């Protein structure tokens, strides 16, 4: 659905990165700070242009898409999301429906907003001011916004959709972190292609199918997550001794 071939971008330092995101598959983008994870996500989402190489979404070059048509198929969750003026959570999540404004359907938008808020365990926040929420609550509400953007009534759930998430669990408590990762799997189960930048390698092992490990803008390893995250590769990439152990029947990456 999204395929990127041989991407270069000087600002952000990406070199020769190729990625394929498929329907129903969760792909992790991993790597230390400054490795180029956010830059790659931005380029893949069409938010910034590659200096060299081509990004195609559903077969068409990303720059040939109209913003609203693209927004109905791909949603993007930024790492930091500040909202300039005080607005309610419900208003914010409803903005996710802007791409459907050509054929407005308030009832459908209402369903989408409620479903997304419930999925992210933030329905109870709907009438609060976004600015008054804690960091973790904001992150869940922003996630609800991008889910609302891709939401379809069951009859149209087959349409190809892609979700790009830049560190969606960064400021969440363990309970909500797990809930979000399970939600990501659930969305993939509905046929959405997911690309997610993560810092928690254990979560990557547990919840993602494939992984791209970036270091200094270059692909260090790429393939199934289990194959990418072996002790030696991770040690080299992050500059800290790492090994993969099993605890409570889960693979866990331990740094020493």
């Amino acid at each position, binding site marked *: 659905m999204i395929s990127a071939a041989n991407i270069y971008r000087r600002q952000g330092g990406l070199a020769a990165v190729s990625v394929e995101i498929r329907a129903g598959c969760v792909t992790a983008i991993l790597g230390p700070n400054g490795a180029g994870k956010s830059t790659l996500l931005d380029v893949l989402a069409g938010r910034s242009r590659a200096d060299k190489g081509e990004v195609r979404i559903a077969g068409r070059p990303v720059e040939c898409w109209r913003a609203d048509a693209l927004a109905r198929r791909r949603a993007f969750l930024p790492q930091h999301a*500040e909202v300039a003026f*005080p607005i309610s959570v419900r208003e914010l999540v409803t*903005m996710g429906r802007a791409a459907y404004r050509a054929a407005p359907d308030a009832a459908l938008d209402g369903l989408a907003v409620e479903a997304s808020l419930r999925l992210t365990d933030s329905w109870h926040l709907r009438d609060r001011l976004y600015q008054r929420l804690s960091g973790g609550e904001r992150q869940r509400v922003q996630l609800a916004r991008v889910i609302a953007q891709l939401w379809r009534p069951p009859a149209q759930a087959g349409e190809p959709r892609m979700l790009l998430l830049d560190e969606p669990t960064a400021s969440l408590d363990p309970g909500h972190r797990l809930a979000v990762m399970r939600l990501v799997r659930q969305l993939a189960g509905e046929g959405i292609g997911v690309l997610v930048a993560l810092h928690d390698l254990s979560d990557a092992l547990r919840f993602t199918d494939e992984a791209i490990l970036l270091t200094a803008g270059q692909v260090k390893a790429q393939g199934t997550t289990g194959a990418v995250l072996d002790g030696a590769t991770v040690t080299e990439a992050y500059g800290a001794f790492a090994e993969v152990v099993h605890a409570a029947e889960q693979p866990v990456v331990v740094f020493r």
Partner: protein
Amino acid sequence: MSQGTLRHRPGVLLALIAAGLVLSLVLATAIGPLMVPPGEIGRVFAEALGILPANSTDVTLRDIVLDLRLPRALSGMCIGALLAIGGSVMQGLFRNPLADPGLIGVSSGAALAVASFIVFGGSIAFLPAGLRYYGMPVAAFAGGLIVVLLIQRLAYRDGRTDVPTMLLAGIAVTAVVMAGIGLLTFISDDTQLRSMTFWSLGSLGGVGWASMVVLAPVAAVVLLLSLRFADVLDALMLGEREAYSIGFEVERAKRVMVLSVAAGVGAAVAFTGLIGFVGIVAPHMTRLLLGAAHRRLLIGSSLLGGLLVVLADTACRVIVAPAELPIGIITSLIGAPFFLVLLLHQQRQGYPGS
């Protein structure tokens, strides 16, 4: 709590603001050196509309109402609306509640053009008097627009208008323009200097039906245009790239919005000179009352901006009657402390982008 419940009934609040605006128009028509009771205003209208027979009201009264106060009040309403819309759009674009149309150079450009016109303007004496009335407004409008276009051009890079660069370019270009005004001040004589000073303080003393003919359509077009971009402005609350990600062609919208603000505010200051703080105070009060969603904000703040200018202008006419205080003095006197409160409040709240 009562504020909370009212906030969820924006229709009621909008109606209240609109009623306040109508009331302020009546007040502005009634109050002055010669008081005209509201009943008399009604009779004048009835006569003008042919409901009452001709000459059933006092001629002086009729002239004061129809030819002086009413067109001035209505122009004030349009000017206030234009300044408030300009402020709302700029604040949305810059994602900062303290932004003002002055940032993109409208006011300074207009001021330079007007100063040039005052100093060198003798050269349009050949025009018929009817057109000469529009000389200074046209100069102000053109000056504002040229400076805005220059600033926008400077901020244009890699196919997009960079908003932070626009802010900085605005400051730099404004500094150069102010130097130009300084130079003109230096070479002007005392009369010209006085005109320039008074222009920079703003006054509705020169408006009438002739300006209303221009201001009413401009205000209508700018309001409708800005409403078309209400959802883009909402999306811009999230940031420019987020607005693109949720499905808006931000570039085109930005260009059109900047130009329409330049045209609207340019037209307003063209007839009145600079009127400070309305563009900040009106949108902010509206945001407190109605929330930040832009459709409501644009409608509400244009009504409230109109209300504020009409009231301020009435105060100007009354306070030192029979002379008139420049309106900029009143709006700054009330607006500046308000601005300060807003600034301190914002620091405590920690708005992003501050």
